[in-house]
């Protein structure tokens, strides 16, 4: 890749990627453009690997089970020739017996250039970023954010819809507990899309009134003519918190079946961050049917994460 994007990356990119809100329109566009170029650079290659991050160390610090996200980041780092260390700690840092701060200092001593952090506590990557010199990427923190998921979703949307300005995206489900929804709302708004959230009122945060979104409790109405619909994973344990009465009622009111699929625009996309509850928030035939880009989302995740790793580190080289 040429030197030009390296220089611009240094100016555009935040030091850490903790929230999708950290990205300006220019930075988000730069990341998505970089992902496009990476995709083109490795397309058709026999060895799908770039030497860009040779000698750099990426640590995957995962306090929560998430094989999909960890593998995606691992693959992204390896395809850029970085050294990858997986540091998994089940449960909280406290139950593990070492504090997050001590772990941070350990990673610091080992010279981690990037720490990819997944944690069940909202804000844990924020805390971590105070204690390490390397870049921190939030790979999902509690019920807060998952910015690289939003980037891969935007990348996927852009592939199909080109410009996102004025496009209407409907996000359906447990917004209250969803880090995917928070990051997508922020990034899609930055990119100029119009977002509608659909959920039972119990699964929307009270503060949603301050978000740049429309809220609708009627899924049918919201879906008419939409450019994309993003289904969130419905967690059965929410029933015990009285968020909704039964799976069946949830599925009836907020599930995406073939009839509802027919309400969105003809070119409309069906998305899901995975893992899916087939038959609950999404019908099997819809998940596998026309307009579904769910598998593509996974493939795009690797490319987008390569772009994030590359762009965060590009600034370092520039300043030296």
């Amino acid at each position, binding site marked *: 890749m040429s030197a030009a994007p390296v220089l611009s990356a240094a100016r555009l990119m935040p030091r850490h990627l903790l929230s999708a809100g950290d990205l300006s329109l220019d930075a988000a566009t730069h990341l998505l453009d970089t992902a496009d170029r990476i995709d083109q650079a490795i397309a058709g290659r026999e060895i799908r690997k770039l030497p860009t991050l040779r000698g750099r160390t990426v640590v995957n610090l995962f306090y929560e089970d998430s094989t999909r996200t960890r593998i995606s980041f691992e693959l992204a780092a390896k395809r850029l020739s970085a050294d990858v260390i997986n540091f998994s700690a089940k449960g909280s840092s406290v139950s593990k017996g070492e*504090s997050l701060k001590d772990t941070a200092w350990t990673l610091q001593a080992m010279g981690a250039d990037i720490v990819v952090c997944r944690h069940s506590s909202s804000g844990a990557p924020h*805390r971590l970023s105070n204690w390490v010199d390397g870049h921190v990427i939030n790979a999902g923190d509690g019920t807060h954010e998952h910015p690289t998921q939003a980037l891969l979703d935007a990348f996927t949307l852009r592939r199909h819809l080109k410009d996102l300005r004025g496009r209407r995206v409907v996000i359906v489900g447990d917004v209250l507990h969803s880090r995917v929804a928070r990051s997508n709302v922020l990034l899609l708004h930055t990119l100029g899309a119009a977002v509608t959230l659909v959920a039972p009122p119990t699964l929307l945060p009270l503060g949603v009134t301050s978000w740049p979104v429309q809220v609708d409790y009627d899924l049918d109405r919201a879906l008419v003519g939409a450019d994309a619909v993003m289904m969130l994973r419905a967690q059965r344990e929410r029933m015990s918190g009285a968020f909704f009465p039964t799976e069946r009622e949830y599925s009836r009111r907020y599930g995406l079946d073939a009839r509802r699929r027919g309400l969105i625009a003809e070119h409309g996309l069906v998305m899901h961050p995975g893992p899916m509850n087939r038959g609950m928030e999404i019908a099997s035939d819809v998940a596998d049917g026309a307009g579904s880009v769910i598998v593509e989302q996974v493939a795009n995740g690797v490319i987008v994460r390569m772009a994030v790793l590359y762009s965060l580190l590009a600034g370092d080289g520039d300043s030296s």
Partner: protein
Amino acid sequence: MTQGSARSVLITGARPYGEAAADVLIVDGVISAIGESATQDAAGAQVIDGAGLILLPGFVDLHTHLREPGREDAETVATGSAAAALGGFTAVFAMPNTDPTADTAGVVEQVLRLGQQVGLVDVQPIGAVTVGRRGERLAELAAMATSEANVRVFSDDGDCVSDPLLMRRSLEYVKAFDGVIAQHAQEPRLTVGAQMHEGIISARLGMTGWPAVAEEAIIARDCLLADHVDSRLHVCHLSTAGSVAVVAAAKARGTRVTAEVTPHHLLLTDDLAVEYDPVFKVNPPLRTESDVAALRAALADGTIDIVATDHAPHAAQDKECEWDQASPGMLGLQTALSVVVTTMVDTGLLDWRGVARVLSEAPARIGSLAGHGRPIAVGEPANLVLIDPAARWTVRGARFASLSANTPFEGMELPATVVATLLRGRPTVLGGRLARIGS
């Protein structure tokens, strides 16, 4: 300052309640003369230069966590007493959420004695309402009331007495010895996993919300229970505009309810959580600008009776971690006066008489604590504080007397310092520093 008879102290030139300057002579721990006669009788007295300073009755904190017994790594009765004296307090009420819980005569007497041994402030134990603060059955309240500790305030603070029947019974039971239940108003089912005020910021930060209604509903219920059994209720750390309205309505109809607000709820708001630094995690949580405005107005008009610190020391490792794993609470003893001055005095909401009311007189009265919160008048015990209203200082938690440093005001420049504190005529603080005891 000259050294004379250890039994008499002359404070010269200070302004009682911020009004006209008058010398004050203290003999044997009691105010013996005020004005010109004080100077005449002062031969051999220790002189404290009070020129430019304001003299108030020593502060009384109805809500302090001293952590001893159990968490002596975070605070002890000795270090907490030192912080209190430096903050201008002459008495503190020690919350019972220690380990073991202060739910028996034995434990409250132990805390009382620890306080007496230190001797910097009067440490008045609060007794737990229920055994182990578990909210299941009443602790031996009368045994604590009739113990050496003479307990009059009972609280499960940190937890709410949420069972309405248990709350009714405890309100009734303590009438026999003119006790008061100090309620930590938090409906537990509405606050499962709650991390911060439920609102715009919690929605953005993805943290489980602590809704205002969880506090307001308990206060409303407790006021109705207090009406029903004609008992005294005290509301701890009231934090929302809605709670102010509930208490105002109850007082208007004659409910025997009093309420406190913390300094941090008078100054800080929930948006401080945006960096996820748990130094701003507290229970009840920091609320919004409109809540802060309502709390200040309510303190000014008397709907809220007192300021209490909820001084809650925590060891470093309990704050330097993820937000949801951090302990809630903030230091308060050494910043209380300054926060009250910046939020209430500098804004014109309270005069110095008002400060004496909310930080000394009313808390002593609510807690039935004899000898404190008394007028600055001849014949009254000399529990006093000298304040420099013109001074400004920068908060540094590491310099506090507390073993812990978890102040949410770190780095803030605040008005007013405590120059001297006198406990029954004996300086515990002089020149802004701890006085050597026995000197």
